């Protein structure tokens, strides 16, 4: 028997996308101080100083860094928190 078109295939894709992990990407900018970025990463994500410094240097040297990966709702909240410090953050489905 041929499969029945339930019309749900698109919805399934959407569900899979919501369940899949999302990245918070922090982008370099030429005016934010390294000390400020380290401080914000520690404050927003609770990272220790060494991890915050490593991620900050990735942003500085590579132009961007994935600073957190997890569920979309939390990723969005983290990106909003980073924007509250004028840091340029975006979210994207994790590769």
């Amino acid at each position, binding site marked *: 028997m041929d499969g029945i078109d339930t019309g749900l295939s698109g919805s399934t894709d959407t569900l899979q996308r919501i369940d899949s992990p999302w990245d918070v990407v922090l982008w370099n*900018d*030429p*005016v*934010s*101080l390294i*000390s*400020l970025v380290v*401080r914000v990463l520690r404050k927003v994500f609770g990272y220790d100083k060494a991890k915050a410094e490593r991620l900050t240097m990735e942003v500085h040297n590579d132009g961007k860094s994935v600073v957190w990966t997890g569920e979309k709702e939390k990723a*969005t909240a983290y*990106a*909003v*928190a980073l*924007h*509250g*410090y*004028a*840091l*340029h*953050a*975006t*979210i*994207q*489905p994790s590769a």
Partner: protein
Amino acid sequence: MSEPFHRTATGIAVDLPDELRRWLLGEAEAAGADVVTIGDPVHHRLLGPIDLSADHDDPLIELQRQFAVEGPLERFVATAHATLLSEDEAEEWIRAFQLMLAAAAARLAVQTDDDVAALKEEAAAELTTLQAGISLLIDALDA
């Protein structure tokens, strides 16, 4: 001259000349006005989309982000003449200075290190003054 910000037993003491406070107020008010102006580079820089995989961000998220940007600027304006800040107020000043810095950079079309290097002295001073304020506030809070 004493340190502009230093920790005391009751909070972060602020010792800024009136002229500098007035300048900072002007920066905060300009950032607050520009960020709500659709099409302004400051609006694009501070409230541009965060989900690059979608056509547009969720309106609720956009609203949260607008509050996240406007709140610190408004709280800075309300305390701009203070001589003693609580820790929370000092943290709000850091956020406000950082927002003013990003707004100034957007206004000056600064996107790269080369753009910063090419700025005229007065424009560069606008950025370095705000950067110095952020650095000194961080030092005072961490002391």
